[in-house]
């Protein structure tokens, strides 16, 4: 019973407290305020609470109210059932994937010791690891995340088909072609990382990134697999259908692609799930390549740099401080990657459909296979 309750709390905090908050704030700060800054504009400031524009937050609330109150239009000849469930099919996978994302290492009921002689591995002495900081402790977490991300293609394709509009159909086709193509290079670019870490468990991966190379360089994914990082980042951008890969909703060619015929909250769900997918990809990149919750040189039992060891504020207090530091680091990394994606969105023009396919199949895929071979070769020699 207590475990179920704990899971519910974790789901509530992570999904609603973090993912939905970040995703919806992104619509405000990312798409409106940040773009305004880039483009020499002021951005929304006319919706006010008692005369204060509060950095545009009331605008975002007004937007939400507008979405809820708008008429929900379903095109006359559309397949009503599929048209209605499609937003759900896009929305749910964008959230389910978060089940395996670790925001912090497991909690140790005893004391944590870091063993520099064992390459800075943390062990829990006199207690056991308790999973408090990710929803689910799953040994093949990465596979799960990929499977879930792949499912969301159905939503877009079904939405495109069910709308009974040629623009939507083109958008749905584009999105399925694009997502399936990029999943291949995404998976293959990660194969090298998997060979190095030898685990699919995301939390284990993050732990191994705490290892040090020559006592000073953290072995983050981006350090051991720099090429894979770029490949995965690019493929991830394409996977989330955000600019410059936003062909499925290329607004100047196919109006709004597969969301052309959506209105009201169905449209809002489509939009929100796109943002949530952006955050999810950012989280995956952070976990796999940027050390997840790891803060360099900060360990649960103090700060270690080269041969020095400090424990500020005493051991017990420091454990809690390190927990917060690490959660903060994870959140910061996610937000940074999201910010990076937004900067790209507001700087670059959009690809053409055939160019996206060329990039996926003829450039990213060979590169990721080459990366895999080189990694395998190096591992075999070592």
């Amino acid at each position: 019973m207590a475990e179920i309750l704990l899971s519910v709390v974790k789901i509530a905090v992570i999904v609603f407290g973090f993912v939905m908050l970040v995703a919806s704030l992104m619509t405000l700060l990312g798409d409106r305020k940040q773009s305004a800054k880039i483009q020499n504009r002021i951005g929304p400031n006319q919706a006010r609470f008692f005369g204060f524009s509060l950095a545009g937050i009331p605008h975002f609330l007004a937007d939400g109210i507008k979405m809820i109150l708008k008429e929900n239009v379903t095109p006359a000849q559309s397949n009503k059932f599929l048209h209605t469930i499609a937003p759900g099919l896009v929305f749910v996978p964008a959230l389910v994937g978060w089940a395996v994302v670790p925001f912090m290492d497991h909690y140790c009921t005893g004391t944590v010791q870091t063993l520099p002689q064992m390459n800075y591995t943390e062990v829990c002495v006199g207690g056991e690891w308790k999973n408090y900081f990710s929803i689910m402790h799953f040994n093949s977490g990465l596979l799960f995340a990929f499977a879930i991300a792949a499912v969301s293609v159905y939503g877009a394709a079904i939405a495109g088909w069910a709308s009974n509009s040629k623009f939507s159909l083109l958008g749905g086709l584009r999105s399925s072609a694009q997502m399936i193509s990029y999943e291949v290079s995404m998976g293959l670019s990660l194969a090298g990382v998997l060979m190095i870490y030898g685990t699919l468990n995301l939390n284990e991966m993050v732990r191994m990134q705490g290892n040090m190379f020559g006592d000073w360089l953290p072995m983050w994914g981006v350090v051991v697999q720099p090429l894979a990082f770029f490949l995965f980042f690019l493929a991830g951008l394409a996977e989330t259908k955000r600019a410059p890969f936003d062909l499925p909703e290329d607004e100047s060619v196919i109006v709004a692609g597969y969301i052309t015929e959506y209105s009201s909250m169905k449209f809002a769900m489509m939009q929100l799930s796109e943002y949530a997918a952006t955050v999810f990809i950012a989280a995956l990149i952070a976990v796999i390549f940027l050390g997840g919750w790891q803060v360099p040189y900060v360990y649960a039992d103090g700060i270690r740099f080269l041969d020095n060891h400090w424990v500020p504020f005493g051991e017990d207090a420091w454990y809690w401080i390190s927990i917060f530091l690490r959660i903060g680091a994870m959140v910061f990394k996610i937000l940074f990657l999201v910010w990076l994606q937004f900067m790209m969105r507001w700087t670059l023009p959009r690809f053409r459909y055939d160019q996206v396919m060329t990039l996926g199949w003829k450039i990213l895929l060979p590169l990721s296979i080459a990366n895999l071979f080189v990694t395998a070769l190096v591992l075999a020699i070592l």
Partner: protein
Amino acid sequence: MAEDIYQPLDQDIHTEPMILQMGPSHPATHGTVRFTLTLDGEKVIKCDTEVGYLHRGFEKECENSTWTQVFPYTDRLNYVSPLLNNFGYALAVERLLEIEVPERCNWIRTIMGEISRLSDHLTCVGAGGLELGAMTAFLYALEGRELVWDLIEEVTGARLTVSYGRIGGVKDDLTEDFADRWAYTRGRLQEIHANTHKLLTRNRIFLDRMQGTGVLTPEMGISYGYTGPVLRSTGVDYDVRKDHPYFMYGEVDFDVPVGDTGDNYDRYLVRMEEITQSIRIIDQCLERMEPGPVNSDDPRVVLPEKEKVYNSIEGMINHFKIIFEGIQVPPGEVYSYTEAGNGELGFYIVSNGTGKPWKIHVRSPSLIMMGGLHHLIEGGLLADIIPTFDTINMIGGECDK
């Protein structure tokens, strides 16, 4: 039509072409035009262009207005650079009247015309970025256009529907601080121009989208009657300003940029370079122009001064006759052409000796370019329509008249 379109393609899997109605109400078909596309996947097999959704009967309207009352209608032709239309029409009527305008008026017309051209090219380049997804480039370019429109507003009193041209002159002289304000605008424009170059010109995605798409050959351009930046991008250096100088274009020094492949990227580069050249022309004009009258002193066409109108019967009658009966243009016909933002803007005017035009025909560059547009689109991808249609820069008001 249906038979040849529904021919199944020669493939193992049975497929049929899809007919897609793009426009008239579609984000890409600004200025309301309709493409009926036949698509094989994303490839455009056939394109039917249909214009006329913005038809207002400009040519017929003019027949019921006096020669002066036509000016507001010309504002609505190419509404991004209305001053060029104003001056083009004024020049045509002046040729029919065989009158000369004072030198300062010609300088002013050259300056204000080039300022309008800046507005036209900035809009076109920026909108091109927007439609390819680079919204930031669009907003930078629009800032430049706003600055240009501020200048226009200061001189003419309006931003869009300026009606600044007059037969035999212009409405008013430039304002006193015009040169200072131009100095500021010029600096900002050059920054924006440099920023746009940085954002787009060497951007790999932009190059991929623009190079080799919508290719126009010089032969085709000439045979279809293309003019302006679109024709120049193919390597034909035909510019009315250079080849048949009018106003003060013969006096100032400027280059006519030409491209060599005639694709979208060349059209973009030609427009970008013309922005620089326009700035050059305006600088020279401001340097060389001298104070003087801005209106012709021919009492047949120019309204008398208010002092005469209120204090003498002759002045009063002169004013009354010009306003009510219109300027009396001698019978005859003229074809007069100038270089507008999109190409050669021609006015063919027939007068029967009264105060109203008997016939006005506009040779609008956009309409003529729409005639051959399907050749640029067919064979390309659906997404290529966007940059092609943008660099053609069809303006609805001018095209549909």
